[in-house]
């Protein structure tokens, strides 16, 4: 029986690549999205992957959404918390709403989504949770106290839940991508982007597929001894 995998923010960018890669490797995949119906419909048509719309920053919506996925596809055994947003501003210009939106969507969502699947993972004696962190959560970034706090919070979340999940067969890991060629990065002004690429030892932006193959590695049945770990996939951009 193919395992059921759920990818949040899974209809485009890194999440879209993760969902497709899981789908291509025989997993039953559900992709969750929040806003862009058109992109989601296009993604569904092109890939055949089931798409679901809800706000992962909202606990009640997560409860209802996961229940729907479970009734359609079966219990979620693999959860990839990928959904994320940015609301960049330097601290003295950052509105409280910009802080809250990023914390809710990027970090609160990890609690919301994991909490809604943890019971069935425990009952099943198997679970794979992969949280998509960020190089900027590891290294910090100008104009992103909200994003860096949320993403490094994810790395802490990962280590704590990994300790709890170890006994019932649930691994919890983080992947920390560097700059990947997606819509989010393409929104960066060209001269800034050139500087970024120049500071990446591998000499290029990451591809969404670079991240997807790392997720695939972590969710495999025989990756059961890897837990609480953070894999950096950043072209050597930040090493520590």
């Amino acid at each position, binding site marked *: 029986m193919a395992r059921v995998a759920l990818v949040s923010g899974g209809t485009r960018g890194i999440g879209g690549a993760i969902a497709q890669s899981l789908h291509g490797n025989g997993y039953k995949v559900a992709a969750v999205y929040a806003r862009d119906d058109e992109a989601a419909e296009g993604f569904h048509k092109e890939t055949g992957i089931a798409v679901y719309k809800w706000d992962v920053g909202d606990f009640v919506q997560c409860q209802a959404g996961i229940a729907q996925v479970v009734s359609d596809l079966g219990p979620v055994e693999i959860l990839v918390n990928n959904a994320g947003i940015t609301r960049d501003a330097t601290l003295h210009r950052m509105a409280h709403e910009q802080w809250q939106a990023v914390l809710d969507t990027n970090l609160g969502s990890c609690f919301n989504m994991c909490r809604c699947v943890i019971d069935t993972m425990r009952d099943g004696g198997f679970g794979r949770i992969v949280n998509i962190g960020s190089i900027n959560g590891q290294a*910090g970034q100008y104009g992103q106290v909200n994003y860096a706090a949320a*993403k490094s919070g994810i790395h802490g979340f990962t280590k704590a839940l990994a300790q*709890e999940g170890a006994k019932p067969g649930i691994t919890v890991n983080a992947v920390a991508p560097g700059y990947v060629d997606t819509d989010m990065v393409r929104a960066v002004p060209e001269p800034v982007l050139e500087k970024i690429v120049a500071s990446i030892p591998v000499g290029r932006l990451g591809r969404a597929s670079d991240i997807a193959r790392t997720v695939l590695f972590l969710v495999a049945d025989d990756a059961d001894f890897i837990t*609480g770990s953070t894999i950096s996939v950043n072209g050597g951009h930040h090493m520590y």
Partner: protein
Amino acid sequence: MSRLALVTGGTRGIGAGIARALKDAGYNVVVNYHSDDAVADSFAAESGLAVFKWDVGDFDACRAGIEEVRTAHGPVDILINNAGTVADARFENMDEAQWHRVIRVNLDSVFNMSQQVYGDMMAAKWGRIVNIGSMNGQAGQMNQVNYVAAKAGMHGFTKALAQEGAKHGITVNTVAPGYVDTYLMREMPERILNKIVDKSPIHRLGTEDEVGHAVLYLVDEKAAWTTGATLTVNGGTHMY
């Protein structure tokens, strides 16, 4: 003129140790607290320090509180984000309220407080922000997914704001204490306490003064080149 330092959650435990250390080193110190009036009154009487009551998890309360401090004592030069709370539970038993309370008091507070003092620091071209993180934020801990996520998030916040503050003469650092002998530890069963002590190569709990000492080091005039750093003060319990 002595610099003005504000310590949140500063009337007991580690915060009180920090406030005392700063006072003894000649800083003007004001202390924020939220819950226990009796403890705050006796701390104020004993230390001679001014205490202010507000909830650091509440953005508007921080704005009003800092305004009050500014009126009475002038702009804050040194901010120690120490206030914290726990709401421990195994993840499968953790409810949304426990998650939100800990994120709000331990992590949102860092945004709320830093944002209120940052403008004055920019204007003065000098500032010191020290965030009190935790060894558990670095290493993860069972029953503390909320606390670990918040504390790890604080470490990310530190690195992002350090990048922004650099050109304004503002340093932002984290102190990550291990298990310190405070009123909280005295509530812990002896069996567990012994296990904790055994994990430290130094074989004892830390003291409140030892954390105060680390903070003193970071807020010093001469510490201007130390920013974005995490100083672990944990008796060697977790090294990485």
